[in-house]
């Protein structure tokens, strides 16, 4: 029975591989349902035995927004491209929170699922991939709050936000954030298997990166001659894109976005190959 399974007829030859190996995405495709189940497990477990459940997905970016608004918006009076500071910073915090959580969870995914790695075969790529995807659900929930804020500011007459065609580009920016997170997480998760130092680097890296990204401030504050170098950070492209698409900020996609996307792709591809190269030793070194 079970003739439905395509793996039945497959013949696998296992031999030592050396150096850089092919990605074997076919294997990953065969295990696509596992990605789904891992995402589902992550979400299910994350909010079990919590009092307010999914509200936590909102609280993290929302409270940061409140703090930012008080200190950077009201006290430091950082310019916010003519938008109310709360909505300006929240639009930046949305993709950032997604990115930071995805990076953190995916980087820890291999070590966090040690028993799976040492006992069962499956494409190891499933673990970081599922962690990144699970973050999207939180993002969508937090996004609903943004819609609420936009309606509120429109109602009290502070803004006149309308549906814009630019909003359709939002998924592309979202993808850019995910690609970046996955790319870096592939490197970090593979390194984490061997060097536990990575566990200490992640929060530091995340904090550092946060201030390098235009979340509390606007990219327009960066001097012209530094703009291209600044755009090497893919998250700058993501946040600028979000503000442009949603709020009409003066940061339309241009060559800087290409630089961001190029860096993100480089991170992803190099990360994939590094991950594959290290994959064969995961079970022995973890």
């Amino acid at each position, binding site marked *: 029975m079970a003739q439905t399974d395509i793996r*039945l007829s*497959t013949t696998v*030859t296992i031999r*030592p591989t050396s150096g850089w190996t092919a990605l074997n995405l076919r294997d990953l495709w065969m295990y696509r349902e*596992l990605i789904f189940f891992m995402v589902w497990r992550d979400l*299910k477990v994350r909010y079990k035995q919590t009092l307010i459940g999914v509200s936590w997905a909102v609280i993290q970016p929302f409270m940061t927004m409140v703090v930012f608004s008080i200190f950077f918006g009201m006290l430091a009076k950082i310019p916010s491209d003519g938008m109310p500071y709360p909505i300006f910073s929240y639009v930046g915090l949305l993709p950032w929170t997604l990115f930071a959580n995805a990076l953190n969870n995916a980087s820890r995914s291999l070590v966090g699922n040690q028993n799976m790695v040492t*006992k*069962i075969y499956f494409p190891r790529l499933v673990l970081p991939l599922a962690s990144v995807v699970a973050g999207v659900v939180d993002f969508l929930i937090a996004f609903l709050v943004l819609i609420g804020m936009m309606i509120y500011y429109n109602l009290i007459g502070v803004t006149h936000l309308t549906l814009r065609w630019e909003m359709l580009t939002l998924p592309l920016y979202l993808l850019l954030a995910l690609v970046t997170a996955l790319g870096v997480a592939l490197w970090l998760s593979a390194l984490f298997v061997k*060097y536990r130092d990575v566990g200490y680097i992640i929060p530091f890296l995340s904090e550092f990166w946060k201030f390098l990204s235009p979340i509390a401030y606007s990219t327009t504050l960066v001097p012209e001659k530094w703009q291209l170098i600044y755009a090497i950070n893919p998250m700058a492209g993501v946040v600028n894109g979000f503000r442009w698409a949603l709020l009409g900020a003066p940061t339309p996609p241009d060559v800087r976005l290409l630089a961001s996307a190029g860096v993100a792709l480089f991170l992803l591809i190099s990360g994939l190959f590094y991950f594959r190269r290290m994959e064969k030793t995961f079970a022995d070194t973890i």
Partner: protein
Amino acid sequence: MTTVIRVENLGKRYRIGLVSQEYQTLSEKITTALGAPLRAFRNLRRDGHPPSTIHNPSTMLRTSPQSDHIWALREVNFAVEEGQVLGIIGRNGAGKSTLLKILSRITEPTEGSLTIRGRVGSLLEVGTGFHPELTGRENIFLNGAILGMKRAEIERKFDEIVAFSEVEQFIETPVKRYSSGMYLRLAFAVAAHLEPEILVVDEVLAVGDAEFQKKCLGKMGDVAQQGRTVLFVSHNMSAILRLTQESIVLEKGRLVLRAPSAEAVDYYLSAGTCGKSGERIWDADEVPGEAAPFQPIALRLRDKTGNIVDTVRSTEPLSIEMEYSLAAPLTGLRIGIYLSTARGEYVLTSFDTDDQHRFEKHGSRPAGHYLSRCTIPADFLNGGRYALGVNASSYRIRRYFMDEQALSFNVDTSGAPGMQWAEPRPGVLRPRLEWQIETK
């Protein structure tokens, strides 16, 4: 018949001492770089091997002085036909687990190749990926997916899995509230319904209660009957004999014998792998680290005059002694012996603190050097070959050490009751019973 598994010249090398690995890697790189020309020359002269092999094949396995590597498996060759049930026998550390890990693609071999036709289902560790917060139902789906089942497949078999696991009432309860037995049954149920072409089973039968073990063995039998291939690793010789037609014996990473299971079990119990001189001595490096603070030293068999023997007469008492030391005081420690026949059926189990008086007196043992001794009475065992296992544990706390086949010995029946008839006498025991013959 098609070959479903072909293992060719398979080898797996591990680096030992993972703790200071970076340092070792670095220093190793330096020494390799500096010593390469010299070593190349030496290797070439010695056995003509290319200089790229760090390991020198002319020395036996294990560590060679110039590297801190260990070959867990070396030059293993065998093939398995479709529908065959192959037993894998070997002492702890013989390379069984490494072989299974390579077979189930968890780790890569260092050399050689392995060709597998069909899906491999591994029961290396049941319940992998189970999440305590999720309910039984949720874990069935999750675990099924981890084991490589399609969602539709899990849905189709769901009821069967639940019925097999006997946890119907608790299927909506988080598994963290399960008893360990329930947890295990559910985990095994999922794995048992994977229905792969090749099933790899390792010691899972050592867990669970007797009733459930029977069920598991039955399930494995079914799998074999359906014409699927099974690789079965166990220390339970009677299970090996019952379930497999043929077995391979691994010794220090090498395949030393492939034979019909009866022959392989006999080899394992009598030749080489198992202590046979009436004495089994454990070297410090043979004992797994988790045994601490318990350190086994030796297990010995003595006849009535105190000589160490590997053949005893059934008409004489036999003394079994276990020597060990404790690096720290232990509470509730008990030293147990397991006596079984060469076919793996248990004859008896006994602990040194079975007796209530001794249990109270030796409830906690300070650090020190000990000897636990017992006597098997005369006119007790029938003739044949027996295996003796030892175990050191604290009831419901921890098992420190276990060696199920520490020693094997022969029982000779000369002079035993009934020897006037030269016929085999069935049964494990050969007691001298008090018969009365009356004429009425």
